[in-house]
C-alpha cells in the first residue's frame, strides 16, 4: 500500500475540466481521491506544501526514444523514465526504432517489464508499422496491442509505400489505435543534412526542402480521408505542413499532429558553426516556420507538444556535421522551453499549455492520465513556473548530453512528480 498524499495550497490546474484555482489534492490508493478546499487527509499521510506552485496532471510525451533494447549505452528505459519524471512527465510513449525493433510481442513486453522495474514515469511502447521497420510487410498490430502497444509507427523511417500506409491505416482502424507517421519524402530529402535555405547555402551543406515533409503530410491526410483512420503526424516543422493540417481539420478528418520544443524555439541558424547538436530530422527551419507552429499550438491546429527525445553519445555528435546523427534530448528541457518560449511571451496560456502536454496527448493515444477528476490515476506534476534556472547537461538524468540548449536560461521546472500515487522525483531531494 502506498502512503496517501495530500498536496496543499497549490494552484490546481486541471485542463481536462478547465478548472484553475487554489485547492488541495488528495491522492490515495494510486488515484485522485478528492480535490477541494481544506482537505484533511488520514493520519500519517504525506503532506506536500504546494503554495506558490502549480499542481497539474503529469505531462505525457507521445514521442520519445529510449534506445532499449539495443543501444543501452545511450539511454535505457530506466534512465529515460527517470529523465521524464525529472521533467514533470508521468508517462512517455517509446518509439520502436530499437535493435531489435519493437515489432513483436516479446519486444513490447520487454519494454513494459523494464519500465515496471524502473518504477518511474510510465512507459507505453509504440509498435512498428512494418516488420523490422523495413516498409514492406505489416507488423501484427493485434498482438502488439495485446502485449501493451498503444500506437504504431515506423518513426525515424517514413513509410514510403502509399499502399502499405493505406493498409496500415485500415488495419489500425480495426483496433482503434492511431498510426503515427514520420513525414519525409526521402527521395526529395535526398540525404540532406539540414534545412534547405540560406544557412545551408552558406555552410555548403546539403539541404532538405520543406516540401519533403509537406508532400508526405499531404499524402497522409489524403489517405486519412480515404480510410477514415486516425493519422498522427509526428514532429511537424514547416508552415506548409501547418496549413495542410489546418485544412484537414476543417474538413473534419481524423488528423492530429505534434510539434517539438526545438521546432517552436530554434531556427536553422542554430546550425551555424556546424553545431551538430542542432542537427535533427526534421531539420530546424526558418523563423516563419517557428511562428507558424507557435500559432498552430495556440489555435489547436497542432494538438500536442512532444519532445522527440533522441539520445546520442558524445562521440557521435563530436564529428563532421554530415556524419553526425540526427536528434536531441527533450524530456528535461521541454517544460522550461514551453514556459519560456510560449507562456511568458503570452502566446499560449499556462492551462492551454498543460492541455497540450497532458490532457490532449492522453486523449490522442487513449492513455490514462491527463486529468485530476476523482478516480483518475494519481499521476501528478508540481511545477514552479517562475523558477529561473540554467540548463546544465552534465546534471541530466538522461544517459546522454546532446542538447543545443546547454547554458540557456529558462523559466519553469518540475519540483515534484508523482506516478501511481508515489513520489518518483522530488527536486528538493534530488
Amino acid at each position, binding site marked *: 500500500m502506498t502512503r496517501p498524499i495530500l498536496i496543499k495550497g497549490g494552484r490546481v490546474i486541471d485542463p481536462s475540466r478547465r478548472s484553475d484555482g487554489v485547492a488541495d489534492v488528495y491522492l490515495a490508493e494510486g488515484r485522485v481521491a478528492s480535490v477541494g478546499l481544506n482537505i484533511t487527509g488520514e493520519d500519517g499521510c504525506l503532506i506536500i506544501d504546494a503554495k506558490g506552485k502549480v499542481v497539474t496532471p503529469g505531462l505525457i510525451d507521445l514521442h520519445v526514444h529510449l534506445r532499449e533494447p539495443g543501444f543501452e549505452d545511450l539511454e535505457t528505459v530506466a534512465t529515460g523514465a527517470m529523465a521524464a519524471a525529472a521533467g514533470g512527465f508521468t508517462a512517455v510513449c517509446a518509439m520502436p526504432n530499437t535493435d531489435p525493433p519493437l515489432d513483436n510481442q516479446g519486444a513490447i513486453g520487454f519494454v513494459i517489464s523494464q519500465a515496471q522495474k524502473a518504477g518511474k514515469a510510465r512507459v507505453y511502447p509504440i509498435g512498428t508499422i512494418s516488420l523490422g521497420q523495413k516498409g514492406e510487410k505489416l507488423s501484427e498490430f493485434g498482438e502488439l496491442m495485446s502485449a501493451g502497444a498503444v500506437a504504431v509507427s515506423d518513426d525515424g523511417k517514413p513509410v514510403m509505400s502509399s499502399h502499405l500506409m493505406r493498409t496500415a491505416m485500415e488495419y489500425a482502424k480495426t483496433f482503434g489505435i492511431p498510426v503515427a507517421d514520420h513525414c519525409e519524402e526521402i527521395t526529395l530529402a535526398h540525404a540532406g543534412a539540414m534545412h534547405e535555405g540560406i544557412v545551408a547555402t552558406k555552410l555548403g*551543406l546539403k539541404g532538405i526542402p520543406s516540401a519533403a515533409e509537406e508532400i508526405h503530410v499531404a499524402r497522409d491526410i489524403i489517405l486519412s480521408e480515404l480510410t477514415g483512420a486516425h493519422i498522427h503526424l509526428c514532429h511537424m516543422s514547416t508552415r506548409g505542413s501547418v496549413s495542410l493540417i489546418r485544412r484537414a481539420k476543417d474538413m473534419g478528418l481524423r488528423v492530429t499532429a505534434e510539434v517539438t520544443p526545438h521546432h517552436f524555439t530554434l531556427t536553422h541558424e542554430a546550425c551555424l558553426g556546424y553545431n551538430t547538436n542542432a542537427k535533427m530530422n526534421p531539420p530546424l527551419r526558418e523563423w516563419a516556420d517557428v511562428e507558424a507552429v507557435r500559432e498552430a499550438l495556440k489555435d489547436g491546429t497542432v494538438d500536442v507538444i512532444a519532445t522527440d527525445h533522441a539520445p546520442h553519445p558524445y562521440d557521435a555528435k563530436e564529428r563532421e556535421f554530415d*556524419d553526425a546523427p540526427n536528434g536531441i534530448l527533450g524530456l528535461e528541457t521541454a517544460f522550461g522551453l514551453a514556459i519560456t518560449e510560449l507562456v511568458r511571451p503570452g502566446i499560449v496560456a499556462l492551462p492551454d499549455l498543460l492541455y497540450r502536454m497532458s490532457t490532449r496527448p492522453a486523449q490522442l493515444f487513449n492513455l490514462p492520465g491527463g486529468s485530476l477528476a476523482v478516480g483518475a490515476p494519481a499521476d501528478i506534476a508540481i511545477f514552479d513556473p517562475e523558477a529561473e534556472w540554467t540548463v546544465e547537461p552534465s546534471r541530466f538524468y538522461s544517459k546522454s548530453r546532446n542538447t543545443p540548449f546547454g547554458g540557456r536560461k529558462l523559466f519553469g521546472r518540475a519540483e515534484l512528480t508523482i506516478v501511481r500515487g508515489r513520489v518518483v522525483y522530488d527536486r528538493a531531494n534530488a
Partner: protein
Amino acid sequence: MTPLSLGKDLVGLEHLSAEQLRLILDTAEHFKEVSERPIKKVPALRGKTIVNLFFEASTRTRISFEFAEKRLSADTVNVATSGSSISKGETLVDTARNLEAMRIDMVVIRHHASGSAEFLGKRIGSNVINAGDGKHEHPTQGLLDILTLRDRFGKIEGLKVAICGDVLHSRVARSNIWGLKKLGAEVAVCGPHSLMPRSIGELGVEMIPRIDDAIAWADALNVLRLQLERMTSGFIPSLREYNRVFGVTRERLERAKKDVVIMHPGPMNRGVEIDSDVADGPFSLILPQVTNGVAVRMAVLYLLAGGTPEPQQTGGNE
C-alpha cells in the same frame, strides 16, 4: 606592429574583412618575387612544422601548398588518407590530436565534409588552413582567383565577375563570392537552376540563367569544374547537353567584351564546361592562376604564423 591579423585559422573568406583580404593580397604580391629567384627560398617559417592533411584527392592544391611551405623554409609532412590510421577508422579529431601531440605548428586540411576545417580549428591549438572542405569554402583558391583578377584589372571594385557552372556543389564559388563582394566587385552566377543553391541571391549575387548573357555582361568568367557525378546523380541530363547549353566556347566568346578574361580552378573537363581553344586561348588566365596560388598560400602561411605585412624585411636569400 601590425594591428591587423587573420586570427588563428583560415577556414573561409566569409568572416574576413576587406582589410584582411587586402592584407593577404598585398603580402602575396611581395612573395611572388621569391618564386622568380634562382634560389626559391626565404627563411620566414624556418623551424615551423606543417602537416598537409589531405582526405581527398588533390594535385594542384596539395603541391601548391607544399611549394609555398618549402619556399618559406618550413618542415612539412604530407598525410594522405590511404595508408594512414584514417583508413583504419580513426576520427578526424583523434587524428588531429595525435598530430598535435607531436608538436606541430600548422595543419593544412582538405576534407570531403563541409565544416571539417572549422571543426578542427576549434579543437586544436595549431593554426588550421582550409584547403577545401566539402561544398563550403576553398579560401586560398578564392584568394588566388582575386589576386589574378587584381593583377589584370588593377582593382576589384566595380569589376563584373560571372561564376559559371555547378555553384550548388562548389566551394570555389562560395569563396569567390564572399571575397569578391567584400572587395566591391559585382558578382553573377550562371548555370542551370538545378545546380544553384537555394537563396543564393541573399549573398548579393545576380542569377543569369543563360551563358550567352553572362558572357556579354562579364569582365571575367570563372568557369567551374563540372563533376561527372552530377550527371549520374541526376542534376543535369548529360555532359553533351551541358556543353551545348552552358559550355564556354570560342563562338560564344564573340559576344564578350574585348578584354574579357577566363579563369578556371582546375582540373578542367575540356569539351564540357570549357573548350580547349578557350582554355588555351588568348583570354585565358588559367596558368597565371596556378602561379599566383603559390604566392597566396605563402602569404596565408606567413600571416597566420604571425608574420608582419612587410615580409621582405624578414625574408631574404639564404
